[in-house]
């Protein structure tokens, strides 16, 4: 059985073909990524393919994600790969989806209803789905949702203290994101620790180059997370502000004359690390900055980033009533030891004790343990594999059909 998986980034499109062997475990046969999709800049867009070690890079203008998907589908056709089903990552499933769904007329209708919930991410994913329907109409498709993992969050954590009628009308609640990543990380951390998920109180930090979030996971189920109705609140992110006073929005519109679209852009694209530092949205640039005039604000940006992260870890330890494992994942979580070091400083009160040497030695290749020996809380880096989670859902949904 071959499963094609699409994962849309804001300016990239990752896709993988998983070959499911007789033992039921999926292995990657084709891996491709379209870079700088729809980006106008100095360097042009290109696609990389890796078909069982056979690598190829093609530079060409790619205006949209749909176009990038077409290129991948053509490549698959050219190389005579058969595809049994296609899986897609969808960021925001709203209240419609608590688990992955096979693409049917009803599913499509609901997906369209979800578009305004994540205006940057959802329409792009839907365009890729449309392209697949046009090009491979006979192949079954399914959708997995980043918000689904958090459907177990209890009312005390997902409710906003807004008037009942308003909440009902707009379905305002905390949804949460990065669910595919958390699904993988929970399973992988438990496997590594040789314990069942239902034995673990875990705080997982998904720190990406774009968006970041934290999740409180009790016995394998999400009980709270830092993002909300949209992916805007929570941590200080690369260009997103994270938590702010809600009245700030009202104030800036009323007193400073901002239009809502300007403010949405300001909070989502010009805030966070970029807004504070003034020169970069990348925490790695900010950590390594030594240039005069930049350094002071770079230090401030790093302090704000780690301060907010520590607050979330602390609040989720309290929410869980203790902690067994603290897990870092995604590019920054796994790749930037300085962030982990700052996050774990003076956290002995909840049993977190980081071995600074192990912390600096951690690699992005495998799960690494970073806590000092004998410490109560395990500290791990777990490189995440969102596409694998999508593929595993494909086996569940289409496995029997293909067999």
């Amino acid at each position, binding site marked *: 059985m071959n499963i094609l998986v699409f994962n849309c980034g804001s300016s990239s499109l990752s896709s993988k073909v998983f070959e499911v062997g007789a033992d039921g475990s999926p292995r990657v046969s084709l891996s491709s990524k379209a870079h700088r999709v729809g980006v106008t800049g100095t360097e042009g867009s290109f696609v990389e393919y890796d078909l069982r070690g056979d690598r190829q890079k093609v530079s060409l203008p790619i205006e949209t994600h749909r176009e990038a998907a077409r290129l991948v589908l053509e490549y698959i056709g050219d190389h005579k790969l058969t595809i049994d089903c296609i899986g897609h990552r969808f960021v925001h499933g709203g209240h419609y989806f608590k688990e992955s769904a096979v693409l049917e007329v009803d599913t499509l209708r609901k997906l369209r209803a979800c578009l305004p919930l994540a205006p940057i991410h959802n329409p792009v994913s839907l365009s890729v789905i449309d392209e697949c329907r046009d090009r491979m109409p006979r192949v079954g498709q399914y959708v997995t949702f980043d918000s689904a993992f958090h459907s177990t969050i209890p009312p005390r954590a997902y409710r906003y203290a807004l008037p009942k009628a308003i909440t009902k009308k707009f379905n*305002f609640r905390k949804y949460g994101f990065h669910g595919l990543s958390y699904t993988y990380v929970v399973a992988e951390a438990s496997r590594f620790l040789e314990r069942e998920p239902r034995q673990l109180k875990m705080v997982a930090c998904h720190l990406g180059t774009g968006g970041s979030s934290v999740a409180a996971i009790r016995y394998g189920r999400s009980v709270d997370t830092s993002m909300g109705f949209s992916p*805007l609140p929570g941590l200080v992110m690369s260009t997103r502000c994270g938590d702010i006073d809600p009245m700030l929005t009202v104030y800036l519109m009323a007193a400073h004359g901002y239009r809502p679209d300007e403010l949405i852009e300001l909070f989502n694209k010009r805030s966070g690390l970029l807004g504070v530092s003034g020169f970069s949205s990348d925490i790695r640039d900010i950590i390594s900055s030594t240039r005069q005039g930049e350094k002071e604000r770079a230090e401030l940006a790093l302090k704000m980033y780690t301060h907010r992260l520590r607050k979330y870890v602390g609040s989720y330890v309290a929410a869980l009533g203790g902690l067994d494992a603290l897990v870092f994942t995604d590019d920054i979580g796994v790749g930037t030891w300085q962030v982990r070091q700052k996050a774990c400083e003076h956290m002995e009160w909840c049993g977190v004790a980081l071995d600074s040497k192990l912390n600096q030695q951690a690699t992005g290749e495998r799960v690494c343990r970073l806590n000092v020996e004998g410490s109560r809380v395990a500290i791990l880096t777990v490189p995440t594999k969102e596409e694998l989670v999508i593929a595993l859902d494909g086996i569940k949904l289409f496995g029997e059909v293909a067999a």
Partner: protein
Amino acid sequence: MMLLFEPDPPFVRWCAVVDGALCGGSVEPGPDGFAELGDRLDGLENVETVGYLLHQGGAEVDRAVSLLTADGIAQLEHTVRLLPEHNDVTTKAAKYGLERLPGARHVLLCDTAFFASMPPEAGMYAVPYELSKAGLRRSGGFGLCHEWAWRQARLAGGDAIGKLVSVYLSDRTNLAAVQDGGAIETTIGFTPVEGIPSSTGCGDIDPTIIFQLHSTGMLLDQINRLLTQRSGFTGLLDRKCSLWDLLRAEDDYEKSEVLEVYRYSVLKHIGAFIAVLGGVDAVVFVSEHLEETADLMLQICRALAFAGVECEDSPDRDGHCWRLTRPNSCVCVFGLRYDKWRVMAQEVIRLVDE
């Protein structure tokens, strides 16, 4: 006699302290109000000191307690833009107070000054730097209360207490993290709406929600009213509800669910502040009605067992300072009975004595 004023737009609440006895009421913050006050108190000749509470002092007022003279009015007027309705009332009261009572000493009490020295990572938002520079920052609040709580915690728990989480339980519930007498975190943001849901305020919400509301044609005034006056416990229940109503929830399932939202929010912020402090020596709950908040305090206390809080099963409920933890508990937890007028009076006296 000492006179104290606190804004309650469009009125000003007053309290007269005569030989330790308090009486009070509410008047208009102008000449008519002072005339009414004079009638109530059989003349204002005996007023020796007057205290005015300013909720939001911004960068202009960075001292918690300071002597106020006519020169200070311009500065006060400059703070009105920060919290228009409340600060306007305080400014007016101070102006007429200085005019009407030239022989008395006038003292300004500022509720944000305690937070003026908060580190930038706690005080700033991750918005473009220029906006922060223009004054968009977290102000903190209820500084008089939290500073008093710090001193009380040291009195009750000794000098070993260096890291404190102070929780003010009220219709404006908020927290402060205090290290060695200075505030390093607050739940109150640019406005008091940020943080924990209150009787009518929404607390922390996703800012995207505001854009959604606005896109359906709701006006800014309406959104403002929605978030500040129609949300919180009142919004969740769809009927007027204070914290005290909520605490009397016993058999009301809906109310107990809302109480759970509130309790959970307080618990999470305590956890966040312990992380900011890098551990904690004491947690204090400050409440005007200790008896009514007793169960709530104990429930939160029990939820903190993992952090070294060993709760008493049935703590002594006598006096103004209840110890909720066992003598050998790593972290002490106290419940403190709060009387804001008396704390204000103490502060005024402290300054005048100096």
